[in-house]
């Protein structure tokens, strides 16, 4: 049965909304995970996100998010003078931040493994 244009639009919008929710939900984890190996400044974090995941965000929004993570005690920041150009604000994970991201990562793996199991038959037939 053919869908009307409106129905199709709703189906696509619904999909978009779901994807937005999913991306949003993983953004905090992605930012914290990017900091796991050491201190980074904002633009470096964004590059990690772009390289390592499909998370494309308006660049400016990562800064308020970092500010909030700092307020929550998950990251710390310090200004470092650059040899040339402007000083940069570097972020590091705090001890609480490391604990939190460890917890988030293990939860994520467990959750996605179970979900994969559930999705397996769909992937098989969908192709």
């Amino acid at each position, binding site marked *: 049965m053919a869908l009307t244009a409106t129905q199709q639009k709703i189906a696509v919008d619904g999909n978009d909304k779901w994807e*937005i*929710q999913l*991306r*949003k939900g993983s*953004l905090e984890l992605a930012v914290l995970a990017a900091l796991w190996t050491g201190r980074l*400044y*904002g*633009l470096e974090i964004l590059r990690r996100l772009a390289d390592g995941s499909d*998370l*494309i*965000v*308006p*660049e*400016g*929004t990562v*800064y*308020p*998010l970092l*500010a*909030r993570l700092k*307020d929550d005690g998950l990251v710390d920041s310090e*200004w470092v003078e650059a040899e040339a*150009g*402007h*000083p*940069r*604000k570097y972020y590091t994970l705090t001890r609480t931040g490391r604990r939190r991201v460890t917890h988030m990562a293990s939860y994520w793996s467990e959750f996605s493994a179970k979900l994969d199991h559930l999705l397996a038959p769909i992937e098989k037939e969908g192709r």
Partner: protein
Amino acid sequence: MMPPANNPQNRIDEYLLELQSALGGLPEEQIIDILQEIRTHLCDSVTSNGQITDASVTAALQRMGKPTQIAAMYLTSSIIQRATTTRSPWLVLHGTFRWAALSAAGIVALISSLIGYTLAAIFTYCALAKAFRPERVGLWRYSDPDLTYSLHLGLVAPPLGTEVLGWYIVPIGLVLGIGLFLLTTQLALWTMRKFFRTRTDLALSVV
């Protein structure tokens, strides 16, 4: 000589000015910090391809997003953070007020907070006023068959009826007033942290 209006540095400055005015209300120190960080980002971002062109500046500013959106995220976080640390009812109401401007849930939170604080103020007032006008403050039971209770206070002459609480109104009023005050603050902060922040982050952080 005036630099051309579309000079890259000028366009970055314009963007930062817009951001600065949208951030109004935050502590001065924090605004300077934010502007410095965003300026560094933009300067890095426009020069990353080796040269600065009009198009590269436009692209960098577009990737950054609207200044008003960035500012809204900062303000939300900051209001909730300050309300949480100070527990000042003024900041709590300020936060719920902003939330109310965005959603129905926020309106409910604002009205509940207002009612909570008003009742807390009335109970506390009853307890304190008893010390100054003992004959006019109390909980009266009318000698009515329906047994209507009335919490009567203020400058109106006491009605006919039996006063039931006596001086107990002082501790009871204080406990209720302070308890309700703390409860309202806790509840408002909890709902703001749980629903308001997630909501605004969600609306703005991912496209």
